[in-house]
């Protein structure tokens, strides 16, 4: 698709020409995604070479397949009109709730929680795909409901729709995903323009609920959180004092990252090699990057994430309709939240919540869900650009 035929007003035309050929997708986003994919594969290859005797490439090959599948799905989404998804909101929402319930009931137990459904060749984590499903369906509900009546009651209903899956994954129990669902819900409502007062009220309720769950209810014998969850939430505040495994993991992660210094330890990254670093290819993969490639590597990965966030925010503003903007807003916050909480966890400034690092952590469900989100962003970009062109203008806001 070529942009040269579009008539533009003076200033913008100059800017467009300077960029040159207009692509029907966001090149920076594609490059950042590819860059992270490469970083992910390199890191997984390095971290897991000794994990399974006899098949050093076990995790690497699987992650490559997940990337390929994810890319195909992303391309498919890019080529389609995301607005059509709005019509399927009830189906998506139903699928979201049903999959979470299915996994909670029938899923396999890993480290004390049911999060995944074991399929042949694949272990399906419903909450990962659920993040995208929630964005797609909740955005649609938001538009439909606010068009009719906008008000406090609508806000409450939308929040209820978003928090229902969060509550369900809490039962698995998967605190991390629940928090992501909450973040997505807040983001969509925020972009939709829900007044500040509503957020303030919701925030107050949330604080009260946390106090109730952590302090009041346990004192009367009702435990909302599992002990390990409370340990995780508090261990990061004093990791070296905690002899338990939570403080241990965080401390080992901090040591791994720190020992990478400026340029990394390369092949002598003993924290990873000798398994001091737990979950080194999944939740703590950023620590592997930090140990192996040092500040240089970690900063590169963070920069790629910053690039993705920037492009996603830009796409938000380019969306041809509010649905696109809400989708983009949900995706931006979903990515931002996961990146910050995961990286924050590995560097010891956030609690351990079991949230994977998008695009980096090993795992098909998370990777494919993130690729779907990237595909949606590209679709919003393509549609937004086409709409702008057909209206004879491009966006000033860049």
């Amino acid at each position, binding site marked *: 698709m070529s942009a040269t035929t579009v008539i533009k007003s003076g200033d913008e035309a100059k800017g467009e020409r300077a960029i040159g050929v207009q692509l029907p997708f966001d090149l920076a986003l594609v490059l950042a995604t590819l860059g992270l994919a490469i970083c992910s594969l390199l890191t997984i290859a390095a971290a897991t070479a000794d994990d399974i005797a006899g098949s050093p490439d076990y995790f690497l090959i699987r992650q490559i397949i997940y990337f390929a599948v994810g890319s195909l799905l992303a391309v498919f989404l890019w080529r389609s009109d995301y607005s059509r998804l709005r019509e399927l909101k009830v189906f998506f929402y139903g699928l979201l709730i049903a999959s979470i319930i299915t996994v909670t009931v029938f899923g396999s137990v890993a480290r004390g929680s049911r999060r995944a459904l074991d399929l042949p060749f694949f272990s399906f984590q419903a909450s990962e795909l659920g993040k995208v499903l929630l964005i797609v369906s909740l955005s649609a509900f938001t538009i439909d409901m606010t068009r009719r009546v906008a*008000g406090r009651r609508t806000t409450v209903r939308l929040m209820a729709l978003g928090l229902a899956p969060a509550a369900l994954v809490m039962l698995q129990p998967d605190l991390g995903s629940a928090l992501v669902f909450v973040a997505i819900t807040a983001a969509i409502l925020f*972009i939709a323009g829900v007044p500040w007062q509503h957020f303030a009220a919701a925030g107050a309720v949330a604080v009260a609920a946390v106090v109730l769950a952590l302090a009041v209810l346990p004192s009367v014998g009702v435990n909302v959180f599992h002990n390990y969850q409370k340990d995780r939430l508090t261990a990061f505040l004093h990791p070296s004092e905690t002899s338990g495994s939570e403080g241990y993991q965080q401390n*080992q992660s901090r040591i791994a*990252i720190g020992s990478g210094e400026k340029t990394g330890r390369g092949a002598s990254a003993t924290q990873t090699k*000798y398994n001091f670093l737990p979950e080194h290819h999944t939740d703590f993969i950023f620590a592997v990057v930090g140990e192996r490639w040092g500040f240089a590597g970690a*900063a590169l990965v*963070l920069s790629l994430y910053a690039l993705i966030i920037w492009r996603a*925010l830009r796409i938000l503003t380019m969306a041809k*309709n509010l649905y696109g903007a809400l989708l983009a807003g949900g995706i931006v916050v979903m990515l931002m939240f996961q990146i910050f909480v995961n990286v924050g966890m590995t560097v010891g400034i956030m609690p351990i919540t079991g949230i994977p690092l998008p695009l980096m952590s090993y795992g098909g469900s998370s990777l494919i869900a993130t690729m779907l989100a990237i595909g949606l962003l590209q679709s919003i970009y393509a549609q937004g650009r086409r709409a702008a062109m057909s209206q004879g203008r491009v966006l000033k806001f860049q």
Partner: protein
Amino acid sequence: MIEPGNSPLRSIGESPLTPQLAMRVALLGGIALALFAIVFFRLWFLQVLTGDLAVREAANNRVRTVAVAAPRGAVLDRSGKTLVENRPASVMQLDPQQLPAATREAAATWGQKMTAWAATPRKQRGPRPAIPAPASAALEERYALLAAVLGISTKTINERVISQLAQIPYANVRVQVDVPTSVRNYLLERPGKFPGVSVDQVFVRRYPSGVGAAQVLGAVGQVSPEQLKADSFRGVISGAIVGQEGLERSYDRYLRGADGTKSITIDAAGRLKGQKLSREPRAGDSLRTSLDSNLQRTGEAAIGSAISRGSGTAGAFVALDPRNGRVLALGSAPTYDPSVRAKPIATKADYEKQFGAAAGAPLFNRAISGGYPTGSIFKPITALAALDRGVITPETTINDPGVLTIGTQKFYNAGRQVNGSLSLVRALQVSSDVFFYRLGRDSNPLKGQIIQTWARRLGLDRATGVDLPGEASGTIPDRRWRAEQNKREVAWERKSKKKCPPDCLYSDKRPWSVGDNIQLSVGQGDVQASPLQMAVAYSTIANGGTVVKPHIGMAIQSDTGQQLERITAPPLRRVAIDPSYQKAILEGLHQSTLGDGTSADVFSGWDQNKFPVYGKTGTAERPPRPDQSWYAAYVPSAKKPIVIVATVEDGGYGAEAAAPAVCAMLADWFNQPSRCSTGGSTTR
């Protein structure tokens, strides 16, 4: 409220970018920027500013330094005969990393409880904290398998694991030292069946001469956390074996050598990934002692036979070279075979049985740590004090009617014997109590408490400084001591809010009296001294005033026998003893082994012309127990003069138990036929 006018929610299809949305997007962008900035700064801090710390922590993570035991040096007797040496032994260990975390936690908790328990006063203590049971059935099964192979109980294994982990949480647990080769091979060939089990070679102490001297030679043991902090154990690695008692302790610095270190690389699960000897162990140097194997053996046999024939329950002896304080023999009975303690005792009950109070507390070195009333062997000190102050002259005669009356109190001779008029020599020969009672009475009002002063000058009431740990300083009662005792008693009564019973170890709040001085003059009452202190006092009289510092170590030698360092123990001080007084006292001591002297019949078969014996019997009253038998002897000789002090608890009169033992030792020392008979003297 969302109102159409300012709401960003507009109809679908319109471009959504309103100013309000732009503001919200900008806010999101701002938040993203802030979050990335936080993470970047945190990374900068971790990796660039404090990265070197983490590098060190990572190294500590995977590299553990473990000690490679250096063979300890040998202990030799005066002629170079080996008393203690090493023997390699297999030790079966358990890797704590291979034990459940619950076990390690249980051990830590138990350790804390034990520390608290040991810190509370004896009376307020509850029962000793019980050793926690194995954390899981699987672990118990592992223990049971091992127990069957090693021939010890599952309970013992659990006890060893818990108590060792409580002390040093990360060191390997020594389950069994000195495992037979067959068992060792069996274990090593089946690593799958016995997870975490490793077999290491250690050196255990071996006592080839069979001389005994168990309390003197001492024992080795794992260094304690408190010791690791002390200066004298600088350079010692946690888990190392160091000297804990006796000579092993006092000369540990030389004997222990320097343990080597081995760096082992492990993974998070504690699996070995590689090892490297980072420092070669350096063998310890040998200690040449002044002990004479034969004399030591004879002494132990003599005291032992006194006990076994029923005169006495325990005892001790010290033989010194009076010229320089070299300890020629030093023993304590009951004793034990030191090789038993070279490896851990299987159970606590076993330990109690062999080393507990019921077994006579054989670990207690009575020769240096025992504090006893000395009985009449104290009399030469009283005599010296009286002569020196002029209370008597060597010729002064005193009438001994068999009793000395002070007010209403009557002090009798032993057996109410009447000796008549006698001078100092005769008084020592027949051990007249009344003679010395009178010296005690007459010197009591004199300025400076002369008997006490002289006792202290000769080395009593303070540690002699012998090169063995755990020496007692004893007691010489005087006015000030009595006042302090009274103060302590008052304090005790105030604290415990009840009256001090007769056995509360204090006094009856009475002031110092002449009776106290009279008791002291014959080594009775509150006086307490160890055999070693008495040996020093007799050496001082024998050598004319040099207070020697007793010592056992003579030289540090390399393993090839080359002398590396001479151990010198210069005399503690000199006291002025008028030669005529010394002569008179020695004459009295010599007479006591002749004619109708108190130990004459013991030495009836002795060649007094060749080796004149200067001896003194002592019989200390320790009601309600039987009397304690003492004997102190000096035999001059140009080449090998000797002072021997022996005591037998509950041994009766001095001539009954202690004197024959000393006689036997002298016979051995001077290669004389051992014609020592049990004396019949019933004089104290």
